[in-house]
């Protein structure tokens, strides 16, 4: 097809401008001396960072966020990858319906998932805390792991695994020496998406954490009081954390070649 005219370029430019400008503004006002988020900018400062790091609730929230994110990343990657590998061996109709079943939670808006889990935990007498948050995050992160790894397994050549088995490798050994190295980039990519989703989640966490705090919950508490540049700093830290997670993952995938 022919290349676009001026209208096409203009449209795409506007879409990108709409998507990127708010995030640019967010970062800009982390460093602005103004207490209100408005122009003109009176000068630049790192005070908002200091103010955030001195906040008594910041470090516990960061700690909780990291515990939840890492646990959810590991558990949902292991469980989801195992499920994707198992469905890859099944007949097509079975594997499709199983994958659909596992990805069902994605269709439920976070608010409904959150209040359903809250009622359920209350009915079975489970105390809310980090464990209940982790269980809840597994529900909506696992579908992404299954979908990503299953997509990779669709074009997987089983011959290599079979020859390893014929040469006397145990199932476990064939998995770690043949299957895993081949699908590693997809598995790591899936883990990162799971972690990024978990780190950013606010709604489900709010209903299942009880009294504790994570970075988004901490941010919520502050932004209910009003606009404050320290909120920009938390937001940017969250963004850097999720981009950082991805960069580490990209390196890990390249590292093994």
């Amino acid at each position, binding site marked *: 097809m022919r290349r676009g005219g001026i209208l096409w370029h203009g449209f795409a430019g506007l879409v990108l401008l709409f998507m990127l400008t708010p995030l640019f503004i967010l970062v800009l006002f982390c460093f602005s001396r103004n207490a209100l988020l408005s122009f003109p900018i009176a000068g630049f400062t790192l005070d908002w960072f200091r103010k955030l790091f001195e906040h008594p609730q910041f470090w516990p929230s960061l700690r909780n966020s990291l515990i939840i994110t890492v646990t959810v990343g590991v558990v*949902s990657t292991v469980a989801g990858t195992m499920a994707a590998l198992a469905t890859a061996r099944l007949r097509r109709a079975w594997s499709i319906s199983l994958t659909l079943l596992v990805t069902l939670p994605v269709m439920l808006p976070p608010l409904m998932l959150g*209040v359903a889990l809250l009622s359920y935990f209350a009915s079975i007498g489970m105390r809310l805390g980090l464990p209940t948050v982790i269980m809840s995050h597994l529900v909506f992160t696992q579908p992404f792991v299954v979908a990503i790894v299953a997509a990779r397994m669709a074009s997987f050549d089983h011959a290599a695994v079979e020859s390893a088995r014929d040469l006397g490798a145990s199932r476990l050994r064939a998995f770690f020496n043949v299957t895993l190295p081949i699908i590693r980039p997809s598995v790591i990519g899936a883990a990162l998406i799971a972690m990024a989703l978990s780190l950013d989640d606010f709604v489900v966490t709010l209903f299942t954490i009880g009294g504790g705090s994570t970075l988004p919950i901490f941010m919520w508490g502050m932004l209910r009081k009003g606009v404050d540049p320290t909120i920009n700093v938390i937001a940017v830290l969250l963004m850097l954390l999720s981009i950082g997670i991805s960069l580490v993952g990209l390196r890990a995938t390249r590292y093994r070649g």
Partner: protein
Amino acid sequence: MRDARSLANLMLLPSGLILVAFFLLPVSYFFVVSFWRVRSYKLQADATLDQYVEVFTGYWVPLLYTFAVALAIALAVTLIAFGFAFYCRFRAGRYGMPLLFLALLTLFGGYLTKIYTWKTILGAEGILNSALMLTGLTDAPITAFLFNPVAVVITLAHYTLPIAILPIFGSLRGIDEVPLDAARDLGAGPCRSFRDVVLPQAWPGLVTAFALTFLFAAGDYVTPMLVGGPNTSMIGVFIQSQFGHRVDAPLGSAMSFTVIALSLAVILGFAGTTRYFTRVR
């Protein structure tokens, strides 16, 4: 062979446990609760449709409002996302992938972050107003930017746009150049090949994008709470409040399942209508 099957079952176990224990059981229990009632602040098992009657008699205004807003967002976002994905795939040449990457970078923006940012941009003492006053375009702050349905639509559209671009681009990427060239060689104009080659293949991506965006918008409550203003309460705000100070789980549950059922109907309607217009003729 039996050995392999039992191994497959074993490997499905952790995933199945998570699905059953933390999704199917909670959601089923929550559905049953919608037929219960609350007496003197305590949940009581019952088999009543009172909650659903209450939803349709007492909350039809926010329900209608929610679906109008969600439909506006889902249609606009699906259309814009399709345009952008189409541009990146067919019209941008070698800049297509970098531009797509830039757009998808905003997936890292964060949910609360994006809502908060729009609040700071649109507020009376906010960034847009101060910029307008600085440039002399206005001399008093315009309060009409924030706390209205348009602010809700803009904020939710900004959040869902990259999520919608992803599946649409996925379906456009699968389109082979060969049938496009063949269509042109056989004398089809750009409109014809767009209708007969591109649209039918883009359809699954369009439906996925619409469904994700619609469900997200219909179920959201943080955006209307922070940028929507007092007269524009979406149903999510009412659902959420049944689990805060009101503690009426049956009503909240009935509201939730009403929203989900109606959303599915809208999504099926969209899928059916668009299938009719995008089918290969």
